[in-house]
C-alpha cells in the first residue's frame, strides 16, 4: 500500500520521539495498544501547571508507518494547546491531514486514544495532589 507524502515525511523524520519524566506531577503518560494488530504507542505531555498549556510532548511508537506518523503529528499539534483544546483533537483530523486510507484508520484512533489517556493520567495526578477534593474529570 502506498503511503502519502505526509506519512512518509513523519515516518522518516518523526518529530518528538523520546520520553518525559513519568513520575513528575506535570507529566501525563498515555500508553495504548491496538487490539487488531498488536501495535503499541506511548505518548506523554508536560503541562504548565499555571496555565494548563502543554509545553512539551513526546512519543514512542512500535507499530506501522501510519501509527508512527499519527503520533508524530499528534505531538506537534499538542504543543502550545491547552489540555482542553487537546481533548478536541479527533482521529478524523489526523486521517484528513495524513490522507490515511480506511484500513489505516485504527492507527489514527490509537493516537487519539493515547492523547486522551495522557490527559487523563495528568488530571488524575493533579486531582490527587490537590489539597481540597476537586471533582475529578477523567476523559
Amino acid at each position, binding site marked *: 500500500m502506498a503511503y502519502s507524502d505526509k506519512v512518509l515525511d513523519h515516518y522518516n523524520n518523526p518529530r518528538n520521539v523520546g520520553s518525559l519524566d513519568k513520575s513528575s506531577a506535570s507529566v501525563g503518560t498515555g*500508553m495504548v*495498544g*491496538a*487490539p487488531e494488530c*498488536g501495535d*503499541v504507542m506511548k505518548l506523554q505531555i508536560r503541562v504548565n501547571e499555571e496555565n494548563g498549556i502543554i509545553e512539551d510532548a513526546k512519543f514512542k511508537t512500535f507499530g506501522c508507518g501510519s501509527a508512527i506518523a499519527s503520533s508524530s503529528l499528534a505531538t506537534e499539534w499538542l504543543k502550545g494547546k491547552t489540555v482542553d483544546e487537546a481533548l478536541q483533537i479527533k482521529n478524523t483530523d489526523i486521517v484528513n491531514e495524513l490522507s490515511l486510507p480506511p484500513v489505516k484508520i485504527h492507527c489514527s484512533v*490509537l493516537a487519539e*486514544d493515547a492523547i486522551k489517556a495522557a490527559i487523563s493520567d495528568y488530571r488524575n495526578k493533579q486531582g490527587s495532589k490537590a489539597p481540597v477534593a476537586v471533582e475529578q474529570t477523567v476523559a
Partner: protein
Amino acid sequence: MSPTCWNCGKPAPSRFCAECRALQPPASDYFAFFEIPRALAPDLKDLEKRFYALSRQLHPDLFSRKSAREQEYSLESTAILNDAYRVLKDPVARTLYVLKQEGFDVGEQSTKDVPPELLEEVFELNMALEELRMGDEDARPQLEAARARFRKMRDELDADLQRQFAGWDASQRAETLAAVRALLNRRKYITNLIDKASHVPDRV
C-alpha cells in the same frame, strides 16, 4: 435450508430431499452446514470425517447430468464446505466465528480491549529489542527471560481458553463468550510478543 423442497414441495427436507433426492440449497451457518451443534470445541475427528464424506457427496461432477439448479447448489455447497472446514478446524478462526454468530461485534475492537499490564511488557520488550539491534548486548538476557515468560503465559492462556470453551459448550452463557473474547485479545498480544522475541538479532 428452506422449509420445503424446491423440487417436489414436500416439507422439511434435509440436505437431500427424502422424497425426490434433490440437492437442497446449502445452510449458510457453518455448524448447521455440517449438521453439528454450535460449539467452541467441536470434535475435530468427527468434523474431518464429515468433511471428506460431504466432499464426495457434493462433488460437482456427480451433478453434471442433473438440473441446472442442482448443479448450482452443488457448486455453492462445495464452496461453503471448504470455507466452513477451514474456519471450523482452526481454533482462533472458529472462536471468532462463534462470537460473530452469537451476535458479538468482532470487527469493532477498541484500545480499551487491550490489557494494560501487557502493554508495559510489550513496550519493554520492544525497547530491549531496539537496544539489542543497536549493539547493546546487556539487553539479551532480559529478552531471553521475556521470551520464556511469554511462552508460559501463552500456555496458561490456552489452558484457560480450553476451560472456557468446555464451559460454553456445556451451558452457552453469554458471559463465557465475553471472557473468551477477552482471552483471545490477550492471546493476540502474547503471540505477537513471542514472534517479536523470537526474531532476536544475532550477536554482532
